[in-house]
């Protein structure tokens, strides 16, 4: 009798835990379903290619094309990579292969700290430090692609550093020792042997950085200028997909609202592709 009660309890526990685990899948399906149901009608009405390919976004005339924002997102993300990847990768190399134990004990928590800073604080920092700096240095308005790229470049640093460092640390020491035995210097070993061996991990860190940069909203809204237009220069403002959603969702209705949801759908598709690339690479890195 007691045994069957125990068995029942085990059974119930199993069901409860399995249900909890399945909720993740449910959440993903719900998110996709809701964006699809609410965004797809506009996407189909405008035609998916016209919606993405058209540069005119005029809620007043019910014309919705997000091409300039897609390009805006890509420009800002590319700028963040140009600034963040070399700095992050070299810092990861330093932490993994050059740093003294004590420096490492200081720098590593500092980098982790950077990962925890809220995006509004980054945005505010951009607004009060980076934008005025650009304004003074180049005699331009200040808010624009460059400012957003710098802010995002700093924001993706912890991701790039952590993932790249893990990949660099995972390279077997026999590679290093072999190169050293052949007479290569420490620097040569690191840059010619270890970094190439960790390449797939480094690329994975960059992809993860792309995902973070393209999805970042609040920090970007505060410094990118938000003008709906094709990029005209790195000092000029653009609007990203994320900024478009957060700026207009507050008052949008009907078709306009659906167009914003369709924007989120396009953003989500970008992110899903990036996630897929990342997991493929990670699988490859594991062999």
């Amino acid at each position, binding site marked *: 009798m007691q045994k069957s009660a125990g068995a029942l309890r085990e059974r119930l526990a199993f069901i409860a835990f*399995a249900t909890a685990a399945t909720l*993740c899948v449910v959440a993903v399906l719900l998110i996709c379903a809701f964006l699809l149901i609410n965004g797809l009608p506009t996407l189909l009405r405008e035609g998916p290619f016209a919606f993405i390919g058209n540069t005119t976004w005029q809620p007043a005339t019910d014309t919705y094309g997000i091409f300039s924002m897609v390009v805006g997102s890509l420009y800002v993300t590319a700028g963040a990579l140009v600034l963040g990847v070399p700095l992050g990768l070299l*810092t990861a*190399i330093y932490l993994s292969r050059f740093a003294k134990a004590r420096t490492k004990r200081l720098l590593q928590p500092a980098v982790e700290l950077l*990962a925890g800073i809220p*995006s509004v604080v980054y945005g505010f920092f951009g607004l009060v430090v980076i934008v005025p700096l650009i304004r003074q240095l180049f005699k331009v308005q200040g808010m624009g692609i460059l400012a957003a790229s710098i802010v995002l470049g700093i924001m993706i640093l912890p991701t790039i550093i952590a993932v790249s460092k893990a990949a660099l640390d995972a390279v077997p020491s026999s590679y290093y020792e072999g190169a050293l035995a052949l007479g290569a210097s420490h620097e040569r070993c690191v840059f010619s042997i270890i970094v190439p061996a960790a390449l797939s991990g480094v690329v994975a860190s960059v992809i993860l950085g792309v995902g973070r940069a393209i999805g970042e909203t609040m920090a970007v809204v505060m410094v990118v200028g938000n003008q709906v237009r094709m990029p005209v220069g790195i000092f000029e403002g653009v609007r990203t997909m994320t900024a478009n959603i957060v700026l207009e969702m*507050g008052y949008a209705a009907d078709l306009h609202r659906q167009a914003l949801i369709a924007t989120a759908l396009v953003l989500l598709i970008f992110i899903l592709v990036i996630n897929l690339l990342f997991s493929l690479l990670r699988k490859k890195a594991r062999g």
Partner: protein
Amino acid sequence: MRLIHDGASGPTALKPAPATAGAATTAGAAGAAAAGAAVRRTARVRRRATHRSVRDHILHALPCLAALLTAALIGFLIIYILVMGIPHISPDLFSITYNSVNVSLMPALINTVLMTLLALAFAVPIGLGGAIFLAEYARRGNRLVGLIRIAADTLAGVPSIVYGLFGLLFFVTMLGWRMSLLAGACTLAIMILPLIISTAEEALRAVPDAWREGSFGLGAGRLRTVGRILLPSALPGILAGVILGIGRIVGESAALIYTAGTATSLPTSLFDSTRTLSVHMYVLASEGLHLEKTYATAVVLLLLVLLINTASVVLARRLSRKVRNV
């Protein structure tokens, strides 16, 4: 003689697992000190023996400069906010009610605590249950497990504005909760779910198998083993994940603007609109009217998040030490 790359980083190279690099134990350091002297000697010999070209010097300087720049950036960012903000922290910033004169952050701070507690109340039981399933119940190669992992990975990559939009469509509009504490908390709960699951699963997997076998051998069932043996010993790791989740909740703004709204008063029910500290900070910064108060608010937010994240790191470190001592 064992080859070790750089004399100075000798103690790190001696340690078996690179993942534990941050937490050098005192015992390890003592042992490494003796070895360190020998290592330094061989390194000096090696450095004289190998020819270091100009290129080597450049390749050495590059990572050092990059690390210096990174450190300088981090230092400047944090110190700048602190220096600009701390002088403007005043008692009226902490008045219990907000008005446009005192720009008090107190209601937002209280709301942040409420929002965090509510979101955790949803996310922690579900996340922990999911982690227990993945780590202890699911069989290897189970189809469902693969699916859950893909889903968790996907959730982890979804931008917070998409969560916010989903929350607006589902909780706010479809379930008719309006912009409210509850809608915001549910949105955040989904957002931190993958984080809770992955950290809790990792913590459970770090418990040695011998403990499970010992428990089973004494006649305990799976549930009792989980409740009495695994959860207590994995607790620091689980807590570290939960605290990391708190850090994300406190720092979040994009997911909350359209789910919890921006009302400045304290909520009287679950269905009242509220703003958390991050959203408050965003509204202040974009209004641009109270720059000094914005700096002060940034300081409070920054310190809060830094404190939370440090607590998480300390807990995680305690776990890794404990596991190593087993």
